[in-house]
């Protein structure tokens, strides 16, 4: 243990504790901007400076360790002056038009400037304006960037894609897409982790709420919405509802009150995905096709973009099943349109997703009889959903639980857990067991694929299951840096699996790039627990027992992997 005094308080901390952590453990929160534990400990913003007794120069609390006998002041006149000066300097190069900023009210720079009572900026305003393609799903506003480097570090250390880098030197040093590329030319997976780790509003998703409002205003359109499993685990955080109150039923109510004609839960198409992917897996596995390489899940578009650019040789091992979003879109424009007796052109499909990459995934084309268009017409993130609810001035406390619409109403616990890392695998195994054995396994039989904690074991959860004399070797991984490491091991022959689930965002969709942002906190694991809780309390736990899915097969798709299913629910991934 190390003994020191912080702000007059005698404290004792473990060796190798940073001054910031030592202070925090003792109730003193030192303000910071660039710091992200384990990811960005580079002391760039200089906001966390503290004074050491006897030293003239201030030091940063974030990356210097507490030493025996230190006397630290976190709020001395010198510290206050310099911290204030530093924030004023940052503001001189920051576009402070907060009212039009997506992060207004959830901005670490805004908060610290307010806390320090900075009411005027004594310096010349110098804003940097880099060109950007505003049609791309990921948008960077250089005038808001404070060069904290978090985006560079998250993409580099967590996602292993190095999309961002510093550019230029000296006073003109800035952040831009690495290798002098544009964002479209880069290998960006659109995971959106740079957005959720940005302390300000320099990075955001393209706002598509305007398209939704436009469709809602169009009398000729039948607007149909779906809401992904992970959305229910997080939307309440931003709107002031406790997890137990922030139900999917209330999202349905909100959407209806905004004018959506039919609301559905993506859990339904998650079950549908399991039917398709489960049968596909059993077929590919038993045919011996997976002897050298496993089958990979295909529901995460960030992962699909990643594998295409980084491991093109593995693309053919992807499941051909479309993601639940795309399957649902296809079902809405075919099966559901038929049910309503309208042409698919009339149907406008909206997805509410925890994800930025889904905005690019929707570009995938759908051909059905005379119809040529898209499965999904517009994708909004969880954050955009909350903005829409606010803009429709719907008071959250007035929302009521309503059911989703028929005939695609049913959902099982297996579909709900799609939003957490390991969920797709567990759901698939529950049904694969049934496909092979014609009987249900114990519902908790495949719990071993669940993650034990955020980024535990480098985001990888391996498991092996015996179904009769068959052994199925599985791995679940989340986070693209972790994924790269695992794929390298698979490629080198160090490990072998039959079935691998990949989610681009650490912790799965609950930690997605479209989810509410809490600076410095990783909430994926907690949100995932919420989904597992919901699963436990669902009446149905197996995708193959979803009555509405079964009815849809009976009325429309015939059976899993049928010709029609292949035309509408599968896709060919091209390298």
């Amino acid at each position, binding site marked *: 243990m190390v003994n020191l005094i912080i702000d007059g308080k005698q404290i004792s901390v473990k060796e190798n504790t940073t001054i910031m952590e030592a202070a925090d453990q003792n109730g003193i929160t030192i303000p910071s901007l660039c710091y992200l534990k384990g990811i960005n*400990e580079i002391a760039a913003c200089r906001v966390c400076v503290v004074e050491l007794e006897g*030293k*003239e120069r201030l030091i940063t609390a974030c990356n210097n360790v507490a*030493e025996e006998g230190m006397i630290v002041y976190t709020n001395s006149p010198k510290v206050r002056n310099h911290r204030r000066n530093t924030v004023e300097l940052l503001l001189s190069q920051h576009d402070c038009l907060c009212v039009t900023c997506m992060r207004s009210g959830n901005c670490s720079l805004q908060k610290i400037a307010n806390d320090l009572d900075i009411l005027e900026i004594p310096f010349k305003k110098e804003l940097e304006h880099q060109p950007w393609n505003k049609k791309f799903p990921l948008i960077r506003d250089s005038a808001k960037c404070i060069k904290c480097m978090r985006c560079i570090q998250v993409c580099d250390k967590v996602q292993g894609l190095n999309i961002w880098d510093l550019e*230029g*030197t*000296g006073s*003109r040093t800035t952040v831009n897409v690495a290798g*002098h590329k544009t964002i479209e030319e880069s290998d960006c997976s659109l995971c959106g982790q740079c957005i959720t780790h940005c302390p300000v509003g320099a990075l955001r998703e393209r706002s598509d709420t305007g398209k939704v409002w436009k469709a809602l205003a169009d009398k000729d359109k039948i607007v149909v919405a779906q809401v992904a499993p992970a959305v229910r685990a997080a939307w309440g955080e931003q709107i002031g509802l406790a997890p137990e109150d922030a139900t999917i039923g209330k999202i349905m109510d909100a959407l209806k009150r905004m004018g959506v004609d039919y609301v559905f839960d993506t859990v339904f198409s998650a079950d549908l995905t399991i039917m398709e992917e489960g049968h596909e897996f059993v077929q590919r596995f038993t045919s011996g096709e997976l002897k050298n390489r496993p089958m990979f899940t295909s529901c995460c578009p960030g992962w699909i973009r990643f594998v295409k650019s980084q491991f093109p040789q593995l693309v053919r091992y992807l499941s051909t099943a479309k993601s639940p979003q795309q399957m649902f879109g296809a079902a809405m424009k075919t099966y559901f349109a038929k049910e309503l007796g309208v042409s698919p052109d009339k149907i406008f499909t909206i997805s509410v997703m925890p994800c930025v990459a889904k905005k690019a995934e929707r570009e995938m084309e759908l051909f059905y009889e005379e119809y040529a268009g898209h499965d999904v017409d517009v994708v909004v993130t969880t954050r955009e959903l909350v903005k829409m609810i606010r803009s429709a001035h719907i008071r959250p406390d007035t929302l009521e639980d309503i059911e989703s619409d028929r005939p695609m109403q049913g959902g099982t616990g297996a579909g709900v857990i799609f939003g957490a890392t390991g969920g797709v695998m567990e759901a698939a195994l529950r049904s694969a067991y049934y496909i092979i054995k014609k009987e249900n396994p114990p519902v908790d039989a495949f719990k071993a694929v669940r993650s034990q904690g955020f980024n535990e074991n480098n985001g990888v959860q391996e498991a092996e299951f015996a179904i009769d004399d068959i052994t199925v070797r599985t791995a679940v991984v989340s986070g693209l840096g972790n994924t790269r490491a695992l794929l390298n091991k698979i490629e080198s022959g160090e490990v072998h699996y039959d079935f691998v689930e990949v989610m681009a965002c650490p912790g799965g969709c609950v930690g997605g790039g479209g989810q509410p942002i809490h600076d410095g906190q990783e909430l994926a694991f907690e949100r995932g627990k919420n989904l597992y809780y919901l699963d436990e309390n669902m009446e149905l736990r197996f995708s193959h027992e979803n009555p509405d899915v079964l009815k849809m097969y009976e009325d429309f798709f015939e059976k899993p992997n049928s010709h029609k299913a292949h035309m509408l629910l599968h896709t060919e991934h091209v390298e």
Partner: protein
Amino acid sequence: MSRLEIDSPSRADIVIEGLYKDLERRIESSPPGLCPVDMARAFLELCHAQTCGKCVPCRIGLGQLNHLIKDVLDGKATMETLEVMEETAVSIMESADCAIGYEAANMVYKGLIGYRDDYIEHIERGRCICTYSQPVPCVSLCPARVDIPGYIALVRDGRYADAIRLIRKDNPFPTTCGFICEHPCEARCRRNMVDDAINIRGLKRVAADFAGEVDPPACADSTGKKVAVLGGGPCGLSAAYYLQLMGHQTTVFEMLPKLGGMLRYGIPNYRLPKERLDDDINSILKTGVEVKYGVKVGTDITIQEIQKEYDAVLIAVGASTDKKLGLDGENAEGVLPAVEFLRDVGMNHIMDLTGKEVAVIGGGNVSMDAVRTAKRLGAKKVSIVYRRRIADMTALYDEIEGAVAEGIEMQTLKAPASIDVDENNHVKGIYVTPQMVSAIKEGRASIRPTGEEDIYIPCDVLIVAIGQNIETKHFEDAGVPVARGKIVTTSTGAFKDMPGVFAGGDSASGPATVIKAIAGAKVVAANIDEYLGYHHIITSDVEVPVPNLDDRTPCGRVNLTEREAGIRVCDFEGVENCMTEKEAKQEANRCLRCDHFGYGIFKGGREKLW
């Protein structure tokens, strides 16, 4: 009434003089990789501030040039801007009244030509192609990328053995380099911005002197692969060390009776005591490296025979033959190549030079080694004969100073013209043509004859130290590509058409420094490992101490002292004294820890493995 006054500088003058010094040191330690367009802008602003304001081109023109460069940087320029800049720069160069103006414009002009690509990138894409890529100056400039801030911090804490272990991750010759490394690491040390560069080599010497015997780390499991290393110099031994650590059985073929190559047979004992060299070599051998002494490849064994027996072969034979003057009489008795002269001394074949006059031709480090060795062998008078000035010598400044202190005569601006030989075919002296310094060509002052008559310098022994060559014949015959007297490898140390054969050290780079040979050894060791189908990692488990948080108040640099010149010339014992522990602690404490403070904490601060 007084007619004249004594000038005394104002307070402002004194301060600004100090700031000039600060700026000089700052420029010296400028980090590599900066945007040259932005630097041109910065320099130009300084130049413009120096203008007296009398003349139009300088007073106004430099300012206008500056606006144009800013337009380029701000993305407001077109290709036409470049033309205007070039015309304006030439105009100022050709019309300004004094050097303040025309030299400033010349700097801009040189940049417009020299890094036009950068200008165009800014204009066409509004982006800069430069990025800050070398965060820790000393590590960036060390060819072997030794973790310098790491071992300095360990020395500061008195953890000398750990310092040696950490150095060995990248350099298995810590002791040797503590004595004789040319320390390119010190050139851009950021501490220079405060006061003076850290004495990095001195601190390595401290680690080596105080650590005692430090065993090498354990080798990886044996791979069953066998690697032959031809030549037991710094490259061959370093590669053997790392390959052995990776689990490959390595055999070194050495033509001489002992290992070390130029370190033993080129560098005199007074600079690198042999028993200290043995400290490094013994640690390397402890890993299990096998050695075949007295075997010369091409004479005693062919490379083809070796290839048959080993899975991979590394050629690291060094540059062991000398360059010739090309003058008549060069084969006379008493005319010696420096390599041979130093090797004989290294082998203890001592030549008595008592009462003799010795002349050494050349101005490099080998030349200094030769004169100082000759002096120690009892020569009455030892001279360096050099075509250019002392300032133009390629030898390290300390070596020249050491030689001068030991009473060596510096016969500069004298180009060898002919060798005078007596009837017994023994050298009697050398005629030299007086030279004068002339125009600067490619950054170096050239010389031309003064037109005066040749001068005669009598000597009993004439040593030629104008460079070394590589014995390439056998390798060339075996199909190894050779050009300009060097073995030509790819950047990985391999050859296109000879799988399993690699080359490194002086034989591939041409005569270079120890640390470059070691750096080359790392490259070939890693690539031989890959070639053999492995991917072993070399790393160190030594934990680097956290940096001290003291204020960095200016403090002088501890330089190593030397034994008294008059006494040290009487023996071959080491010349340089090590620091005391107290000095070492103070010196190590000066380190700014660029691995932790500045860009190093963000990117590239510490390479923990290779």
